[in-house]
């Protein structure tokens, strides 16, 4: 059994990233945007409990509930959605915990079919892929020379969760980052949304 079995309307989500890449911030933004959309009664966003080190693989989590307040306080065992910042942080154990009808979102230059083969996903798993790193590098949205992934990849999430709209993401990103940086981030969210390869 898993956390979201507790309530059919609760969507559980895990982000795989690296310390310093902003996985927790991504969860915070998506939770805020989901709440703002009015389509979710309750949202939770949280980091891995304990210390995180820059550069080490990290996880961040979110739970989104459409109908009810979230009282589930257990860790997510089987996520509905898995967001992977890049292939180097892929964790086979976590990927295999994805629900059979879950969604797998990854920043990669590969085709969705590649991941079906790599992980032997069932036909019911939705796969959403875009080369977010490349988009960020093209726009020069980098930190210490590394492309910013965490915000732009949320455009792909919007493809999986249509009631988390680009407009909601835009509002949160602008609020958090101010007009100038927010605009740059949102353009990438939109590009990712439009360029996403979906299987």
């Amino acid at each position, binding site marked *: *059994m898993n956390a979201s079995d*507790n*309530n059919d309307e609760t969507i559980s989500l895990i982000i795989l990233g690296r310390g310093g890449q902003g996985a927790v911030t991504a*969860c*915070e933004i998506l*939770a*805020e945007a989901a*709440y703002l959309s009015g389509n979710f009664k*309750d*949202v*939770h*966003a*949280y*980091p891995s*409990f*304990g*210390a995180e080190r820059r550069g080490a693989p990290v996880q961040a989590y979110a739970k989104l509930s459409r109908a009810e*307040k*979230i*009282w*589930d*306080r*257990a*860790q997510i065992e089987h996520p509905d959605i898995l967001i992977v910042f890049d292939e180097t942080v892929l964790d086979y154990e976590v990927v295999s915990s994805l629900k059979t009808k879950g969604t797998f979102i990854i920043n990669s230059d590969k085709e969705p079919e590649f991941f079906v083969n790599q992980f032997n996903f069932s036909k019911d798993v939705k796969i959403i892929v875009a080369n977010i790193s490349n988009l960020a590098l093209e726009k020069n949205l980098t930190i210490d020379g590394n492309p910013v992934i965490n915000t732009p990849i949320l455009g792909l999430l919007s493809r999986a969760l249509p009631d988390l709209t680009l407009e909601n993401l835009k509002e949160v990103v602008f609020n958090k980052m101010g007009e100038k940086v927010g605009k740059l981030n949102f353009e990438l969210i939109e590009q990712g949304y439009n360029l996403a390869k979906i299987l």
Partner: protein
Amino acid sequence: MYGGMSCESNNYGGGKISLTITEPKFKTLGQKTKILTGNHAAAHAIRQAKVGVISAYPITPQSPVVEKIAEFISKGKLDAKFVKVESEHSALAVCCAASVTGSRVATATSAHGLELMYEMLPWAAGNRLPIVINLATRSLGAPWSVWTDHSDFITIRDVGWIQFMCESNQEIYDTNIQAFKIAEDPQVFLPSVVAYDGYILSHTMMPVTLEDQQDIDAFLPPLKHHINLSDISQIKGVDPVTTPHIRNRGEEGTAPGYYEYRYALQKALENSIDIIQQVHDEFAQKFGRSYGNGLFKTEQVEDANVIIIAMGSVASQSKIVVKKLRREGLKVGLVSLKLFRPYPAKYLKELLKEKETIVVFDRDIGYGYEGVLCYELKSALYGLKKSPFIKGFIVGLGGRDVTNEHIIDGVNRALNQAKTGEISQTTEFLGLKLDQLSDYDESTFFEEVKK
């Protein structure tokens, strides 16, 4: 005279028992909802309570509370003095000193930070200082762990503080605002702890409604302290050596002995239950959010013959279990303890007097005996004509995940023991993973693990 001594004129002990839990009927005031961690919800409440002095020492998982407060002060959003210190002991010593000047005072801590404060805790209670501590709960070492359980929270139950446990970030915010008002009530004047599970609430972002400042101000007026050393002409001193006997002070009359002061402390705690409920109800009316009867929250207790009792994160998880088991036809209910001290014994006795089976889940343990919630409940229900079967389990120490399965397993084991009459006297831990230890051998494990 300290505020507490006036308690003798109160009609303590005979307070009405109200178990009615009303849904909020009032339209909420101007709201502003943010997505906040539990720690930041606490910090915002402290800011809006217009605390005058904060003194704290950082410790995981509490640190973001005081970091945020420091930020509020530096940005001019809170006009308060932040006193940096070298330890939690000093932090609470500063809080006590600041409180006797008549200032509203708060701090925050966790685990060994609270244990290092311990020496000062009875002083704050005995002096009747309305300090509020936010406690992001964390297990006690060794071995070293930064993750949640309620071990720290239970260690301070006998020193005279009011102790609240919260289940959501909104409840952290709301309870903080109430805690100041309760602590500062002339019939109370007691310090209080507002606790919440470390990480599970302290680091999880949830929607939290921050009320308008003017509404908070109206609900929580400035502190009128019973003691105010900033006016040195009024007070001769605090904490002189207090003798076992009543002292005759000539023209000034008589001074209580230590025994009378401590009697007053106990009465103030007993009386505070009424104030806690009043303040809770007033808050619910004004802001539209309520938490059971202010002492505990219930789910489907009325027709239940099996009752789960838990606190904080474990109670939250149990809400889901109640729904699940109800769907399977088991008449189960939940009592989530919000007020741990003063312990609402007579209210629980009234609520549970006709129940058949009670299953208590402790995210703590009174080492050498059993879970503290369990043995306190047994004590509270003593003297009932027909005593329920009470079975306790230990869960989730040191941040071990507490799942629905663990709670369901506990309920089933308890029902089974109640049915067969084979009551296990050993303290049972749910969610142990001894079988996953590569070379676990029960005969040698206990020898090896202590090395």
